[in-house]
């Protein structure tokens, strides 16, 4: 993978990743538009990056970048998704700290529309991923369990993970034996 092409792809994601839709943008750009990664591989990658500290979106970019282009690829991917927002953030911060300026009400109402579109994007992405991510009753049950405890009951994230991760590992214990080592990891590569 040429590093220039990789950086360009990630900087494009960084330019449009508004309103918490970063991961969904990454999915659209890497899996659907360019086919650089398989569906299942992407799902497992982002799921892994969730258990690390820091924004999942930035972590996933670094991880995918490194898979596609080595250490340099990882660094460029991270810089790509952060740079556009960082430059804008520095300009806005400078304007605020030195002149007390905040974005006007027009910019804010435009952002309302962008936020709604971003949520729509996340929903559409989840719909696309659901058939392969929720492929069994136990998968649906596990996802529902997380949604109810974390999303509806507002348990602390750490507690939710401490309960659901061991439970999930137990549910998949039998299949984990049958799964050939490294097969799914190598399938989407090259």
């Amino acid at each position: 993978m040429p590093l220039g092409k990789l950086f360009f792809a990630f900087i494009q994601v960084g330019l449009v990743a508004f309103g918490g839709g970063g991961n969904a943008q990454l999915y659209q750009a890497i899996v659907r538009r360019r086919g650089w990664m398989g569906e299942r591989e992407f799902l497992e990658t982002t799921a892994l990056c969730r258990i690390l500290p820091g924004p999942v979106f930035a972590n996933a970019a670094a991880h995918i970048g490194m898979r596609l282009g080595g250490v340099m690829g990882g660094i460029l991917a991270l810089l790509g998704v952060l740079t556009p927002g960082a430059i804008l953030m520095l300009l806005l911060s400078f304007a605020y700290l030195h002149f007390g300026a905040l974005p006007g009400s027009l910019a804010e109402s435009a952002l309302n529309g962008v936020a709604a579109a971003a949520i729509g994007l996340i929903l559409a992405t989840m719909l696309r991923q659901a058939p392969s991510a929720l492929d069994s009753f136990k998968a649906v049950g596990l996802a529902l369990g997380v949604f109810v405890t974390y999303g509806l009951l507002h348990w602390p994230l750490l507690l939710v993970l401490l309960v659901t991760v061991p439970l999930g590992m137990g549910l998949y214990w039998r299949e984990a034996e049958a799964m050939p080592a490294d097969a799914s990891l190598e399938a989407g590569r090259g």
Partner: protein
Amino acid sequence: MAEVLEVFLAFLRFGVLSFGGGMANLPEMARVIIGNGWVTPQAFADGFALGQFVPGPNMLAVLFYGLSAAGFAGALAAALGMFLPGAVGAMWLVVGWRWMARTRWSRALRRALVPISMGLSASMVLVLIQLSVETLFWGLGIWLACWLIYREVGVGLVIAGGAVLGLLMGLL
């Protein structure tokens, strides 16, 4: 210079502790940053709002706090501290995972994390809707955007359409 190092170390701690994306870490962050006199409480809130405004992770707000604390070098130090721990871990996982894939527990973990991650995404969407959607109009807008993107209309086009529609609503 000592100030920049202090900023870096403070944000490195947030970066290491910010499981689940950093939002959960916000109260602790407010306590430390305001306590150190790096920003006023009002500026802390405004800085966070600006973070929602730019593309990329909303934790880019740390650039604001770093800039306020120790200038441009402080901003870079804050961003490095915040984003480096997760990114280094994620990159290490590329190597580590291949090694761990030989063990049964890690294969079970990898399978289990996918539906768990879907549940976390659904929870996040719920929070985003609660935080940012105040009218039925935008509630319908979400479903329209979802439908368009699902029908393969370009993502950039739908986001831009949202911005234009929001602008029109602001003008009316």
